[in-house]
C-alpha cells in the first residue's frame, strides 16, 4: 500500500538513526528502529536506510539485533555489497556463549539469501551441526537446505549429506525432523531422503516424541515407504492406530494419507481405515474454527465417494447453524443430499425447507437445488415443498424453483403434471435470465398442458426488443415453435412477429441464424418441423439412475490432505452428489474383502451345473472357454463419461447404414441418458454435435478392426425384477462394474457395465463394455412400436432393431430373454467368450435365487 509522505519518513528516520545522541541511548535507538520496521511492514520502501541499519546491528541488545535482522533479511538482495559488512558481526555472534545469540546469527546468516556470501557461511554452518545446544543444531540443519537452494547447480557435498543422515539419530526430535526436511530438499533430484527399513522403523519409534507438526512431517515422508512383508505392514498399521484417531485433525489426516498409500494394494484395509477415521473427522466438523470445519467437510465429501453410506446415521451433524457462513452451509447441503435414505428423508427435507428462505440468496438457491436432487428419488414430497415455495413470490426463490423443476422433469417425467400446474403465474416474479429460460423451456415442452402458455409467451414476445439476454431469446424462439406445433391457432400470429423481428431487426448472429433455420424448416412443411422439434422430452426408460457406484479409494487418495478438495468449485461436486437412497444404504462390506483381480476358476465350476439352462448359442461358448483361465479386473476404473464416449463410437460404427441425420439423434439421445443434463434442448445443438463428431468417427474407422462387438441372449426372466443392489453386488463379486441401471420393473430395462479381462497367456488386457437389455415385448408389438415412432426416429429404430434381433435369436428359447450386447477392445475372442460365460453364470445364479 502506498504510504503518503514515505520519502519524508525515510529522511527523518535516517537523521534520527545517525544521531549520536540517539545511538548512545539504547531505548531511543531501539524505538527508532521499531519505527523503521513498522513503516517497512506497512509497505514503505526503506531500502535507503540499509547502511544505517548495518551499523545498528552491532549491539549487545538482543531485541534490537532481532529487529535489525528482520530489516536486513528483507533488503539484503538489493544491497549485496553492503551486506558483506554484516557478515563479520554475524560470524562473531556465532561464537557467542549464549546459544540463543548463536542460533539467531546462524539463522539470519542463511536468511540473507545472497549467493556471494556462501563461502563465509559454510564454516559456521558446519560448526553449527555439532553445537551443544539443540536450538543451534535445528537452525544449522535447515541452513544447509537454504544454502543448497541458493546455488542449486552446485555439487552436493557428500560429507554434509552423511552428517545430516547421522543427525536423524539426534536426541532432539525437532533436529531429527529438520534433518528429514533438509534432506528432502537437498536430495530432491534423487527423489528425496532415502526411506529404507531401518530409517522407517527409527522414525516410527520416535514419532511419539515429536509435536504435532513434526509428526505430520514424518508421516508425510513415510508415505514413500513400501513394507517388505504383510506382517511388517500390519505392524506399522497397528502402531499408527492411535494417531489415526488423534484429536488433532492434522495428525489424523496425515495418518490416513499414510494408511491409504501403504494399503494401496489392500482395498479392504483402506475402507476399514475410512470407517475408523469417521469419529475424528466428525469432531473436526464441529470444530470452533470455521475454516477447520470447512476443510473437514471437503474431505468428508471425498470419503463419501468411496463409502456413500459412511455418515448416514450422523446426518444431523450436517445441519446448518444459523450463524454459519454461506460457504459452509452449501457444503453441508451437498453432503446432506448424499445421506438421504428412507428413514431420514422426512427430517432432512424439513431441515432443507427451512434453509430455502435464508437471507442469503445463494444459500436459499443451493437449498432448493438440493431438494430437487432429493426429488429424483422422493419426488412427491419434494414437489410439495417446491410448489409451496412458489407461493412466496420472491424472484430469487421462484427462479431457483423453476430451474430445479425443469431439471427434475427431465429425469422424472411423472412429475410433469404437478409442475405444469405449478407454473401458472410464475412469470410475474421471475427476474433473472436463468429462471426465465427454464420457464420458457417448460412452456415449450409442456405447452399443451399449461392453459396460459400462449399468453405468457406473448408477453415475452412483446418485450423481446428490450430483452438483453441472448439465452432467453434463443429459448423463446424454440418454445414458440414448439407451442405452435401443438396449439397453432393461438400461436401463429405471435410466432410470425417473433420470426420477423429476429430475422429483420435482431443484431445477434446466433439468434438470427436460429430464426432463419426455423423459418426454412417451416417451409418444408409441418410434419418435417414436428419431426425435428418434438424429440424426446425426457428419457423415462432410464428415469432414475442409481448414482455412480462407490469409487475405489485410489481415485482420490492422492488428493487427500492437499488443497485440492478445498478448491473444487461446486461444478465438480455437483456430479459427485448424485444422491439416491439405494446408494446410501448400500453396504460396502460384501466386496470389501475382495482383491482387485479374482481368479474365475471358481466360477467356471459353478456354471458347469447351470449349463442346461443356457441358450444353445452360449453353451458352445462355454465349452470352449474352460481351457484358459481368465481373470477380470476393475482397474483402471472407467468413468461414466469415458464409457459413454467409447460406447458411442461403437454405436456410430454399428449404425453406418443409417443416414447421417439419424446418427445425430443417436449421438444426442444416448448422451442424454448418461449426462442427465440438457442445456440446449433445441435442434441446432444436435446438428452441431453430429458435425463435431464426424471427423472423429472417420479416424476411428481406420482402427475399426480393433473393436469387436457381439450380441447374445440369455434366458433369465427374473433378472429385470431383481434389486439393483443385489445385481451390483453380484457383479462386483466377479469384478464386473455396473455403471447405470434403470429401476426394476420398468421397460425397457437396461444395465450398463464394464470390466477388464486378463488372460494368462494373452499379452495384454482388453476392455469390455456391455449392455443388458430387456424389452419384455412380443416381437409383433415391437414392430407396431416402430411404426408409431414419429419423433427421434433414429434412436427408436435402432433400439427396435436390436430388440428384434434379440427376439429372433431366442425364437426357440422363449420370449423372456435378456439381450447382452458386448463391445471389446482390442479384439480377443477367447477372452470375450470367457467373459460371456462368467456373465451368464452370474445372471443364471441370480435368477435361480429369485426363482
Amino acid at each position, binding site marked *: *500500500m502506498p504510504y503518503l509522505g514515505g520519502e519524508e519518513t525515510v529522511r527523518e528516520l535516517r537523521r534520527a538513526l545517525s544521531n549520536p545522541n540517539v545511538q548512545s541511548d539504547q531505548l531511543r535507538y531501539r524505538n527508532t528502529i*521499531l519505527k523503521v*520496521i513498522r513503516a517497512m*511492514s506497512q509497505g514503505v520502501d526503506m531500502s535507503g536506510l540499509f547502511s544505517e541499519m548495518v551499523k545498528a546491528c552491532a549491539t549487545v541488545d*538482543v*531485541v534490537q539485533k*532481532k*529487529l535489525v535482522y*528482520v530489516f536486513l533479511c*528483507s533488503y539484503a*538482495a538489493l544491497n549485496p555489497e553492503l551486506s558483506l559488512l554484516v557478515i563479520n558481526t554475524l560470524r562473531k555472534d556465532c561464537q557467542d556463549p549464549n546459544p*540463543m545469540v548463536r542460533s539467531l546469527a546462524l539463522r539470519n546468516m542463511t536468511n540473507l*539469501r545472497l549467493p556471494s556470501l556462501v563461502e563465509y557461511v559454510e564454516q559456521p554452518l558446519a560448526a553449527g551441526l555439532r553445537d551443544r545446544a539443540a536450538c543451534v543444531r*535445528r537452525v544449522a540443519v*535447515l541452513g544447509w537446505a537454504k544454502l543448497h537452494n541458493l546455488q542449486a547447480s552446485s555439487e552436493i557435498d557428500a560429507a554434509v549429506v552423511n552428517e545430516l543422515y547421522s543427525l536423524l539419530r539426534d536426541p532432539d526430535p525437532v533436529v531429527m525432523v529438520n534433518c528429514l*526436511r533438509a534432506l528432502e530438499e537437498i536430495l530432491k533430484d534423487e527423489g528425496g531422503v532415502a526411506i529404507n527399513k531401518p530409517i522407517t522403523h527409527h522414525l516410527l519409534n520416535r514419532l511419539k516424541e515429536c*509435536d504435532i*507438526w513434526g509428526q505430520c512431517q514424518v508421516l508425510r515422508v513415510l508415505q514413500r515407504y513400501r513394507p517388505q512383508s504383510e506382517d511388517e505392514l500390519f505392524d506399522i498399521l497397528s502402531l499408527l492406530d492411535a494417531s489415526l484417531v488423534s*484429536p*488433532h*485433525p*492434522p495428525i*489424523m*489426516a496425515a495418518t490416513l494419507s499414510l494408511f491409504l498409500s501403504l494399503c494401496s494394494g489392500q482395498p479392504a484395509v483402506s475402507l476399514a481405515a475410512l470407517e475408523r477415521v469417521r469419529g475424528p473427522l466428525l*469432531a*473436526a466438523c*464441529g470444530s470452533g*474454527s470455521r*475454516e*477447520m470445519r*470447512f*476443510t473437514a467437510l471437503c474431505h468428508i465429501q471425498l470419503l463419501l465417494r468411496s463409502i456413500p453410506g459412511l455418515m448416514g446415521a450422523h446426518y*444431523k451433524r450436517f*445441519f446448518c*447453524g*444459523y*450463524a454459519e457462513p*454461506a*460457504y459452509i452451509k*452449501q457444503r453441508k447441503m451437498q453432503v446432506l443430499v448424499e445421506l438421504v435414505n428412507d428413514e431420514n428423508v422426512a*427430517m432432512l427435507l424439513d431441515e432443507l425447507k427451512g434453509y430455502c*428462505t435464508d*437471507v442469503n*440468496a*445463494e*444459500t436459499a438457491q*443451493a437449498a432448493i437445488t438440493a431438494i430437487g436432487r432429493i426429488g429424483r428419488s422422493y419426488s412427491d414430497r419434494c414437489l410439495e415443498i417446491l410448489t*409451496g*415455495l412458489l*407461493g*412466496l*413470490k*420472491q424472484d430469487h426463490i421462484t427462479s431457483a424453483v423453476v430451474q430445479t423443476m425443469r431439471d427434475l422433469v427431465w429425469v422424472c417425467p411423472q412429475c410433469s403434471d404437478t409442475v405444469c400446474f405449478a407454473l401458472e403465474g410464475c412469470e410475474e416474479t421471475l427476474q433473472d435470465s436463468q429462471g426465465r429460460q427454464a420457464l420458457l423451456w417448460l412452456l415449450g415442452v409442456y405447452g399443451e398442458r399449461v392453459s396460459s402458455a400462449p399468453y405468457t409467451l406473448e408477453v415475452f414476445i412483446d418485450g423481446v426488443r428490450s430483452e438483453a439476454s441472448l439465452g432467453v431469446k434463443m429459448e423463446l424462439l424454440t418454445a414458440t415453435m414448439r407451442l405452435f406445433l401443438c396449439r397453432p391457432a393461438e400461436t401463429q400470429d405471435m410466432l410470425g412477429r417473433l420470426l420477423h423481428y429476429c430475422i429483420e431487426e435482431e443484431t445477434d448472429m446466433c439468434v438470427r441464424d436460429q430464426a432463419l433455420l426455423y423459418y426454412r424448416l417451416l417451409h418444408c412443411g409441418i410434419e418435417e418441423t414436428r419431426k425435428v422439434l418434438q424429440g424426446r422430452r425426457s428419457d423415462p426408460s432410464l428415469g432414475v439412475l442409481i448414482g455412480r457406484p462407490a469409487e475405489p479409494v485410489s481415485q482420490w487418495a492422492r488428493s487427500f*490432505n*492437499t*488443497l*485440492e478438495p*478445498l*478448491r473444487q468449485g*461446486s461444478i465438480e461436486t455437483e456430479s459427485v452428489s448424485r444422491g439416491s437412497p439405494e446408494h446410501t444404504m448400500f453396504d460396502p462390506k460384501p466386496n470389501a474383502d475382495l482383491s482387485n483381480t479374482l481368479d474365475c476358476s471358481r466360477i467356471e465350476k459353478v456354471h458347469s451345473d447351470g449349463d442346461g439352462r443356457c441358450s444353445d448359442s452360449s453353451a458352445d461358448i462355454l465349452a470352449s472357454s474352460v481351457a484358459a483361465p481368465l481373470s477380470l479386473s476393475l482397474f483402471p476404473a472407467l468413468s461414466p463419461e469415458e464409457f459413454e464416449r467409447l460406447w458411442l463410437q461403437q454405436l456410430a460404427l454399428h449404425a453406418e447404414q443409417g443416414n447421417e441425420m439419424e446418427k445425430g439423434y443417436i449421438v444426442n439421445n444416448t448422451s442424454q441418458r448418461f449426462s442427465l443434463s440438457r442445456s440446449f434442448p433445441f435442434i441446432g445443438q444436435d446438428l452441431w454435435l453430429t458435425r463435431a463428431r464426424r471427423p472423429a468417427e472417420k479416424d476411428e474407422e481406420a482402427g475399426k478392426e480393433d473393436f469387436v462387438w457381439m450380441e447374445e441372449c440369455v434366458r433369465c426372466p427374473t433378472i429385470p425384477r431383481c434389486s439393483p443392489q443385489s445385481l451390483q453386488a453380484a457383479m462386483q463379486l466377479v469384478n464386473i462394474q455396473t455403471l447405470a441401471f434403470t429401476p426394476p420393473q420398468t421397460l425397457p430395462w437396461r444395465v450398463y457395465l464394464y470390466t477388464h479381462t486378463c488372460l494368462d497367456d494373452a499379452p495384454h488386457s482388453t476392455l469390455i463394455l456391455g449392455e443388458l437389455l430387456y424389452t419384455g415385448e412380443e416381437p409383433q408389438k415391437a414392430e407396431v412400436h416402430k411404426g408409431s415412432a414419429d419423433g427421434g426416429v433414429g434412436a427408436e429404430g435402432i433400439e427396435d432393431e436390436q430388440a428384434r434381433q434379440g427376439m429372433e435369436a431366442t425364437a426357440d428359447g422363449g420370449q423372456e430373454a435378456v439381450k447382452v450386447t458386448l463391445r471389446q477392445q482390442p479384439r480377443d475372442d477367447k477372452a470375450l467368450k470367457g467373459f460371456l460365460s462368467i456373465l451368464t453364470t452370474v445372471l443364471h445364479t441370480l435368477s435361480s435365487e429369485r426363482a
Partner: protein
Amino acid sequence: MISQIFILSSKGDHLIYKDFRGESGGDAVGVFYEKVTALTGDQPPVVMSHKGLHFVHVRQGGLYWVATTTADSSPFTIIEFLNRLSALVKDYCGSLSEKSVQMNFALIYELLDEAVDYGYIQTTSSDVLKNFIQTEAVSSRPFSLFDLSNVGLFGAETQQSKVAPSSAATRPIQSSREQGGKSEIFVDVIERMSVVIGSNGMLMKADVEGEIRVKCYLPNCSEMRIGLNEEFSIGKSQLRGYGAAVRVDEVSFHQMVRLDEFDSHRILRLCPSQGEQMVMQYQLSDDLPSAPPFRLFPTIERDSGGRLLMYLKLRCDLPPKSAAINVAATIPVPKGSLSLSQELSSPDQSAELKPQSRAVVWKIPRFTGGMQLSALFKLEVPGLSSASLLEVGPVGLSFELPKLTATGLQIRFLRLSPVQPGPSQRWVRFINITDLNIFTERSFS
C-alpha cells in the same frame, strides 16, 4: 511448507509480512486482498490460487491470517497452524485486535521467527517459545472507570473484587515478570450447545461441544490437578457414582494430560505451560440430561389490516436461583417488512427490526429461572400473503448461562503443587453459549 505469512486488517492494511523462502513475488499481499474481496457469496474463501500461488487463510479477531503455500501441503496443518499462531499472538499480546497487532508487531515478528524457519513449523509451544521471546508486550487497555469500581469507599475491598472481572484473562502472559502481575490461573469450562426444537415442542437435535481450557499466568507451576465430578461417565453404557450420571459421548485430552487418576477418581493431572491451552474436549449429542432451558409458545397471524401479528411467550425452565443472561431471540420475518411496533413486558428488554438480515431481534439482558416473558410484535408488510408466513421462523435463541453446564460437568477442586509462594489466585468459570432454534408452526393454508 509455508512460503509467506502475512496478517492483514479487514480493510486490507498490511500489519505483518514475512517471507520465509523468497520464492514468490512481493505482491502476494495485494493479490490476496483483491481476490478475497472479489469473492461472491457462494465461493468458498479458505483456499484461493493465483498463478501457482496458493493462499490459505483464516479469520480471527477481525484480521486475515494468511499463508501462501504449495498445492500439495496439508490444509489441516496450515489451518491449525494459523489458528495456533493467532492463539499465540493473543496469549502474548493479551487480546486480538488490529490495534494490539499493530502495537506489538516487533513481538509478532519475533514469534514468527522462532515458530517457523524456512517455511517449516518448528514449534508453537509457549513453554519453548518463552525462552526465546525478548520483546515486552505493549497492552492497549484504555483507562476505564470500571477499574475503579473495584475499589470501595476509602479503598476498602468490596464484594465485587471477589469476582474476577471479565477482562482479567485478557492480558499478556509475559508482563507478569516486571510489572508484578498477579499470578493467576483460570480454568474455563465452555460448552457450546446447539439445539433445534420442532414446532410441536419436540427436541429435534441437540449437540453439546464442551471444552475445559486452562489459562495460566503462573511463572512456574509444576503440577496441577483438576477434579471433575465423580459421576462423569463416557459413552452410553458406563455408569458411575450414585446420583444421576453426568454423561458425555466422546472425550479427548491434550497430550500433556496424565490420566493415571482419571479412571479411579476422575482427576486430570497436568503441568500447564503459560498461556491458554485446551485440556479436554467432549461431545454429547441427542441425549441432554436436562430439558432445554427455554420454551417458546408462538402465535402468528394476520390481522384485518394486513399486518403480521406475532405473539411470543418465552418461558425459562431453569431453577429459580439461576438466570440466563444476554438472551437474544432472532425471529426471521417476511421480506419487505417495513416497520415494527412492539409491546414488551419490561423496560430493560428491547427489540428492533434489522432489514438487512430480515429479522426481528428481541434482547433480554437477564432472564431469571421460572419467569415467563411475552412480547407482541406487529409488522407492517406490504403485500402480505398467507405464504409469507412460511418465511417466519425458525426462531433462533442465543444466551449465556453462567455457572451452569448443560452436561452437568462440575469441577470439584483445583489444586496446585508445589504450593505457590506468593499470593496466587485460582478462578473457575463456566460459560455456556447456546444456539437454540425453535421452529414455529408453519402451514401452507
